[in-house]
């Protein structure tokens, strides 16, 4: 017996799945979101560089470019209504070798062709005025004013919350096991029960090809996870860079970026490492050391700065560079696969594209979630009266913020989920001070508890 009948079932609650669910829910569809993990954003969306890209370097004429441009525009249009931050700091694309310098005019022409016409060329003499800490070896570059910093998790949570406000249902720990296409609808058997839906959207990210096989018996693309390791420096380092500092990209990767985060840290990464494993986002000390050195060749003053965290994200790349988006309306299936490194920027645009493929008339949102402000220079809760006091001293997270993250449309279900919603333990002490209190505050609240048990437990 199916637990519910839906117009659309979105498989995967990453940033792309959440954005698609939001679009369909606003457009009036009854939406179901199935997520296999304990909490949302637990796959590819948990680790990225948190940049809202303009698409200036995306492949010309590609669907990816269209989605980035549309996603970028929609984010700028809606972010303030949901309290989502946007730091329009701009990016500098920097050339460190003669060869890279020779590539700059071509990249600027590509930017113009991609609709990003406001780029400006900078030479060795003008760069220090924009970025005083850049290593003197920098030869030239150009500025892309539209590149911006955002909060990757609040954005995705906002999309999800708005979907839920418009009637979407979220099922966690709901791994899709089998599916049958009936005359007009799908019958989906997940670990959390069975459901019926007219249309299925496969937004399963790192498991996209796997889910495609469950749905259709085969997959027309293969996910080739590409790991990106990052180093996050402590807040004093953020003063060293104003812009997002990008290298001249290669065919494979945008390369190692140095930029602030919206939370006031400085980030260096990612690497681009092909791997088979879809769950294992291990960090490797030697690679991190190399990243640190890369960072120091760009900003020499990074030497000696404290590192707060390191992490690795897995990009759901496929064997082809292009997005693997396809609609089979006969079968009631839209596949959104291979959204490699630009998913955060493109998510809202991908959602628009999918809605168009399906032929739904755009609706108008009735409700807008108001997201907590987590950006370093935003009006944070710790500055406001009645916040209950600070629990996480490094990131200045209050008791009231933690309580709020355990309520609401999609309460945190794990420490990882609480971190993404509030930033607890994400700072320099990594939980030395606040773990005990967090364990107390979250006891009995998570489906994936913080601790193994109480002292007086048996065993």
């Amino acid at each position, binding site marked *: 017996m199916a637990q519910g009948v839906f117009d659309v079932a979105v498989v995967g609650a990453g940033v792309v799945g959440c954005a698609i669910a939001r679009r369909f829910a606003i457009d009036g569809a009854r939406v179901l979101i199935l997520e296999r993990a304990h909490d949302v954003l637990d796959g590819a969306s948990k680790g990225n560089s948190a940049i809202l890209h303009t698409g200036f370097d995306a492949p010309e004429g590609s669907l990816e470019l269209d989605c980035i441009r549309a996603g970028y525009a929609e984010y700028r249009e809606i972010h303030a209504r949901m309290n989502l931050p946007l730091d329009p700091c701009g990016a500098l694309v920097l050339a460190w070798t003669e060869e890279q310098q020779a590539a700059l005019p071509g990249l600027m022409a590509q930017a113009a062709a991609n609709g990003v016409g406001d780029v400006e060329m900078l030479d060795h003499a003008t760069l220090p005025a924009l970025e005083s800490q850049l290593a003197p070896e920098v030869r030239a570059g150009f500025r892309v004013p539209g590149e911006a910093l955002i909060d990757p998790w609040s954005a995705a949570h906002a999309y999800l919350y708005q979907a839920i406000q418009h009637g979407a249902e979220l099922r966690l720990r709901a791994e899709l096991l089998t599916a049958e296409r009936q005359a007009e609808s799908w019958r989906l058997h997940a670990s959390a029960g069975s459901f019926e839906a007219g249309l299925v959207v496969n937004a399963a990210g790192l498991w996209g090809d796997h889910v495609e096989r469950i749905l259709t018996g085969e997959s027309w693309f293969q996910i080739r996870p590409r790991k990106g390791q990052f180093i996050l420096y402590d807040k004093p380092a953020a003063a060293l860079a104003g812009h997002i500092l990008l290298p001249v990209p290669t065919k494979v990767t945008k390369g190692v970026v140095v930029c602030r985060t919206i939370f006031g840290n400085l980030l260096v990464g990612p690497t681009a490492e092909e791997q088979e494993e879809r769950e294992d986002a291990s960090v490797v000390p030697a690679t991190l050391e190399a990243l640190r050195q890369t960072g120091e060749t760009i900003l020499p003053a990074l030497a000696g700065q404290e590192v707060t965290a390191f992490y690795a994200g897995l990009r759901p790349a496929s064997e082809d560079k292009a997005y693997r988006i396809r609609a089979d309306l006969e079968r009631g299936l839209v596949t959104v696969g291979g959204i490699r490194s630009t998913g955060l920027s493109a998510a809202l645009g991908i959602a628009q594209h999918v809605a168009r493929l399906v032929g739904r008339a755009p609706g108008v949102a009735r409700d807008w979630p108001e997201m907590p402000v987590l950006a370093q220079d935003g009006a944070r809760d710790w500055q406001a009266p009645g916040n209950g006091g600070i629990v996480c001293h490094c990131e200045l997270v209050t008791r009231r913020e933690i309580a709020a993250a355990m309520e609401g449309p999609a309460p945190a279900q794990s420490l990882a989920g609480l971190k993404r919603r509030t930033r607890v333990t994400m700072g320099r002490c990594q939980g030395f001070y606040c773990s*005990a209190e967090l364990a107390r505050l979250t006891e009995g609240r998570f489906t994936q508890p913080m601790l193994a048990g109480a002292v007086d*437990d048996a065993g």
Partner: protein
Amino acid sequence: MMQADVAIIGAGPAGLAAAAHLGLMGVKNIVVLEREAEPGGIPRHCGHSPFGMREFRRVLGGASYARRLAARAEGAGARILCNTTVTALHPGPKLELTGPDGAERLSARVVLLATGTRESSRVQRMIGGQKPGGILTTGALQGIVHLNHQRPFRRPVILGTELVSFSALLTCRQAGIRPVAMIEPGARVVARAGAAVLPLLLGVPVLRETRITGILGRDRVEGVVIDGPGGPREIAADGVLLTGAFRSEATLMAAAGMVLDPRTTGPEIDVFGRLAESGYFAAGNLLRPVETAGMCWASGRRVADAIAVHLTGGLPCPAQGLPLRIDAPAIRYALPQILFPAGPGFHKTIQLRVSRPVSGELRLSQGGDLIARQPIRALPERRVTLPIPRKLGEGPLSLDIEEDA
């Protein structure tokens, strides 16, 4: 804006000792700013004895020691504001604070930084692998066990063999946690011999010359990869307990652009406990991770004496300071970092630690002349002190070790 004569950041042993001592010396408006809900600092959640021999002439547990320190400070007239986090330091000195009622500012004649220390995180130790739950420091473990009566894991590995590592082992024991192994990257156990027999008694193997090279598990720790004399191998564990490798909690200073000593990770101080920034002083474990609570308490009293003199304008001009240069690679740190021609201030000794076992002669010279010397035979993580000569001349100071062949 709030006003204070002396604002002390941190209600641990150093901050509370300074508050009590200043109060007894007649300083009136003393405020201690503490971000935790209760004063006392780290000893609050240390389950083990002994605390308090030096301060109260009796043996106390951590929690009651912390309560007595706070009571003594309040008895001397200091106000302790808990749940109050300092968010920024400014010249003046002026502080930005926040508490349950939101943000506020405070102006003080003197600010004493006594923010203490914390253990290095997994990140600072550069331990690779996955990022599951169940990786804790001793501080977090002791809070969870002693304050919450919860148990974070059952079969963890312990990294480190410092004194605190054995404190962690005892905490595990009390909570019914059975560590799989203690892992020490160095050739020998770091803590003194007495503590080192503990794992033997508790049946926990100590693996020397072994590093944790990776952590396994997606959601929760499933094991670690270690590399030691027998080559790399995996051991099953449901947690990783990172102990020691203390570093100064000096973030406020770093954010304010204050000079930090990369060797101690704390602020640079002179023999009076002063920082380069006018009106700022520092004491306790912030200066040099890590010493016992009793040492921090003594450090707090010492700096209180200096602050009392400063408030009457009696300290020498900072411009006369003589930086102490460290010329022996084996010296990990030495402090105070700045001496004065008049000789000792309230810091009577140069305190140092070595980074490897050393034996030979410790030498302080000025402008090429040897002005103090003493034999040294030291292991890492053991405190070494050299009395500051009663009179110094002008000219650069250098600290060196002439090692035995």
